[in-house]
């Protein structure tokens, strides 16, 4: 086993033991973190937060055109 393998093994064991011996508040907090990340990255990102320019235009040229069009359009009456 090389030195790097040994270090990787030690680090891995460090995290495993850390999670295994975690206090009750730590476990509760981790459940909340996982639920939160699920909501943020799977529900919100997937269903509500598409990158508007990336999903509506194929390349940067088209995105620039669109933004320039928005910037140079005649200002609305109640901007």
């Amino acid at each position, binding site marked *: 086993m090389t030195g790097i393998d040994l270090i990787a093994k030690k680090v891995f064991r460090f995290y495993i033991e850390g999670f295994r011996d975690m206090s009750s508040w730590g476990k509760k907090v981790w459940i909340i973190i996982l639920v939160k990340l699920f909501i943020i990255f799977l529900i919100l990102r997937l269903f509500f*937060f598409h990158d508007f320019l990336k999903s509506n235009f194929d390349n940067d040229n088209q995105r620039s055109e669109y*933004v320039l069009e928005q910037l140079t359009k005649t200002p609305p009456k109640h*901007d």
Partner: protein
Amino acid sequence: MINNMDLSLVDWSRAQFALTAIYHWIFVPLTLGLSFIVAIMESIYVKTGNEEWKRITKFWMTLFGINFALGVATGIILEFEFGTNWSSYSWFVGDIFGAPLAIEGILAFFIESTFVAVMFFGWNKVSKKFHLASTWLVGIGANLSALWILVANSWMEHPVGMVFNPDTARNEMVNFWQVLFNPVAVDKFTHTVTSGFLLASIFVLGISAWYLLKKREEFLARKSMLIASIFGLAATLLVAFTGDNSARTLAKVQPIKFAAMEAHYYGKANADLTAFGILKKSDKSIGDQKIMDFAFRVKIPGFLSVITNGEKSTFVPGIIDLVSGTDDSTNIDPVVNKIQKAKVANEILRYYTRVRLLNDKETMRDLRKVYFDNPKFITDTLNYIGYAYLNKPEDSIPNVPITFYAFHIMVVLGFFFIALCAVALLLVLRGTIARHRWFLIIALFSIPLAYIASEAGWVLAEVGRQPWIIQDLMPVSRAVTQVSTGSVIATFIIFAVLFTGLLAAEVSIMVKQIKTGPKH
């Protein structure tokens, strides 16, 4: 599309961003300050070898961990919103925000995720010194992460170090150091992180006060109060000093925000500072906006001029001067002129875009030479291009009552915290703090006040910049994406529920840990 702008979309998008930012900021300042307080406590433990200090450190580290974990990734939502709800803005600033946010991401990931693990899992597994170094690095990493976000936010207040590329509609960074050492960024970083130190100190003082009121954990409470009052006193003085610097910079780069902070409408030398005031609408108007007057005011004569430039004779322009302009020695360009110049710049940009689509390289080269690459045109006209989108000069005025009250709430509470920390230190040093129940109750109820002051600072920064999302370059209404208002309302409600749930979870887990107390 924009001509049929749905105003409720702008308002809902604003509300959505404000809600997310306000909730995100509930978690952040405690992380910034408590990380250092814990590091100081652990340093004492390592130096003295006293196990009581280890117990104190571990107790506050637990509360730090709860706050840190529940706050993690709440800021990511702001980045989602940039791409979805503020796409034109996001594109327009992309190259400026890219570098600071990338550095922030790398720092946050590597420093925090690595050393937070050592902080919590490493007791008795790594050496005392390595553990202590990890605790300090978590604090340093968290505060450095904040630096890059604040640098990006400061660029919105005072855009520097970039050139606008008319081919791509993007601002491109040409001077990283100018962006990093933007005077607004220097003031904002120092003021924001020190306000986080202060909030954490008040948090520690308040919870320690609760233990003393309950006659529990007296050793922990007294020692924690000693650290928090010294750290808090140093932080409040730094907050006051950096706030003063910040005000001076604002007076130069965002004079209308500075005037709105004080509801200062009529410019003059020897201008008075309002220590405390209640606003009312006057009979006078500027355009279609009512001028605010004072129903009640406690003022400090000449002090607004002094904080602006160190001298009573300094002329401080009022909102009316900044909108209507002056033709005396102060020579302020009226907003109506800026609107005219900006419309010309906008027309040139529109013409350039048309020429570019026709691939007329020669005309493009000429236009770039005369306009977009011409420093005089950039300084005098292009840097004010956002004014083209204002319908009337008074649209450049931020909401005066909100800006005024946010500023004064923050300042009044700031002075209160100086007194609180000073009295706490005095009573702890005299050894009589447990006997002063009135003070312990005040300290406990100061915890929400610290959060109010902290949020008021952000309300001042963001509302005071209106109507701009990027000062002088882009108004909020022009930055918003034309998505359906219904989806913005839906996400607003989801966020309100999600964040309120997170906050309730944080408070409930923390209260339980506080009631349980440190392990013996």
